[in-house]
């Protein structure tokens, strides 16, 4: 893996190119500035957490070919795995007591402000910004943030059409973008877009992100009973892909993607295949 050229790719199982094992294969290289966001209904936070696990779990050298491959959503991660890797967490009540903000900073004290301070401190202390030449860089800092913009982070954009803190989320993303750009790190964020009333905020969030992926669940919609979608649980919308260090981005051929989530299998398929299979029997009946 070449440092600084990191790209996250979703595996797409296309029936025209079905793999011999019949299992999805996830290839992963990482952008050092990937910011991946997804929005979905609350029921489908699970596949997004799953994506986070798949993309950012530590793979041991012996299982590098099966990186992020095996999972079971009914089970939690084993404590042994936690203890074997170096990780940092952010829990606001502890953060306030351990690392109070310097008084000279003019910004208001908010949870997201504390989170930025925490990320910046970890980047500096662990040497991910290359500031300490003595520290040998072995890996890339992977950051996962859940439900950004929700009331858990002290924002009111999910509870009001005219929120008081309308710029808090976008300012946070901009500063985070700056931190990622100047360090060897990547971040994946989930945003409950279905709760944000002000759609202008989501447009700005998209503009500030490198990669934007949406998961649209069929639950509660007319598609849930539509025979065209009977084999799938929702759609995958790749809204934006990174364009870093190049004039244009490499646009994928496939645009219509659907996903299916089972206890041990998460599949993304090209939706046009589904349409073809549905029409063919009718044509010849």
């Amino acid at each position, binding site marked *: 893996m070449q440092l600084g050229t990191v790209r996250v790719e979703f595996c797409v199982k296309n029936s025209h190119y079905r793999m011999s094992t019949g299992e999805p294969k996830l290839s992963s290289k990482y952008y050092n500035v990937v910011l991946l966001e997804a929005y979905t209904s609350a029921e489908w936070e699970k596949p997004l957490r799953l994506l986070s696990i798949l993309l950012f779990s530590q793979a041991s050298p012996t299982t590098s070919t099966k990186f992020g491959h095996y999972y079971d959503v009914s089970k939690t991660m084993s404590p042994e795995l936690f203890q074997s890797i170096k990780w940092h967490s952010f829990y606001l009540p502890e953060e306030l007591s351990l690392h109070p903000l310097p008084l000279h900073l*003019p*910004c208001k004290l908010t949870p997201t402000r504390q989170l*930025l301070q925490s990320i910046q401190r970890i980047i500096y202390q662990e040497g991910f910004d290359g500031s300490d030449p003595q520290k040998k860089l072995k890996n890339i800092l992977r950051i996962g943030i859940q439900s950004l913009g929700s009331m858990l982070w002290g924002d009111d954009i999910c509870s009001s059409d005219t929120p008081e803190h309308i710029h808090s989320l976008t*300012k946070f993303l*901009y*500063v985070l973008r*700056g931190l990622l750009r*100047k360090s060897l790190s990547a971040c994946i964020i989930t945003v409950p877009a279905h709760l944000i009333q002000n759609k202008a905020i989501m447009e700005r969030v998209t*503009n500030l992100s490198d990669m934007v992926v949406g998961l649209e669940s069929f639950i509660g919609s007319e598609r849930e009973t539509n025979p065209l979608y009977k084999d799938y649980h929702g759609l995958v919308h790749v809204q934006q892909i990174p364009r870093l260090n190049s004039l244009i*981005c490499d646009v994928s051929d496939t645009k219509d993607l659907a996903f299916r989530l089972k206890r041990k299998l998460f599949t993304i398929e090209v939706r046009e295949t589904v349409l073809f299979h549905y029409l063919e029997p009718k044509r010849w009946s």
Partner: protein
Amino acid sequence: MFTELNELLDASPQRPETGKFTLLRDTRTDGSFLVHHFLSFYLRAGCKVCFVALLQSFSHYNIVAQKLGVSLTAAKERGQLVFLEGLKSCLDLLFGEEEKQSGQPSPLQFISESASDLKALFDFVRTFLTPAGSDSWKGPVLLVDDLSVLLSLGATPVAVLDFIHYCRVTVCYQLKGNIVVLVHSNEDSEDEENELIVNSLCHHSDLILWVEGLATGFCKDVHGQVMHRRARRGGTCWCHTQRCLQAQGWARRAASAPWEMAQG
């Protein structure tokens, strides 16, 4: 830079225009390739360029510029290019040491809510584009990528329009330079503040380059179309010429529709 675009606009680095405000607008696609075009164009033309880069890092623009035959690092070293890296300035403002903050005010100090206008940003632009005695550069150029980010950082639409107005007066009229600004817009956008800025700038632009993704959907060979609209102000008569061309491969499609508005 793209020679086909220069032909369409009848522009040449040997004889850059003066006093022009160019608006780059993109819809359903990414129009930042035009920013790279104008950056390399004006550097080749020998103009002094102030680049307010709010969305990407310096290394990104430098790598792309090298593919277009221009070195931003060399331009900076010889004093031809002043590069404001918004991401870095923002980090310096929020995480910088107290001693550093007592010096020159940050161009983006409006983010920290100590000021509600963009005067510091304008002062930065004016300071570096006002010619010094030893300068041998041609007209100054202000390049902004992209203006929509200022709204995300807390600036009001009025503050953004004021900033652009002051820059136009100083750069275009007083210093006889040029301004190129990129904004994003969507047809069904709910971002009213952004649409207000876009519509206002459209009325004040001498040239609009509107990049759109194809309305018929995704196509592998053609990414979109570029529409160029030039406003010629001669007396009381306004003439708009409009041409479209395909972005990928630059195949020209005849869609010129000149019309004139009679004296109102």
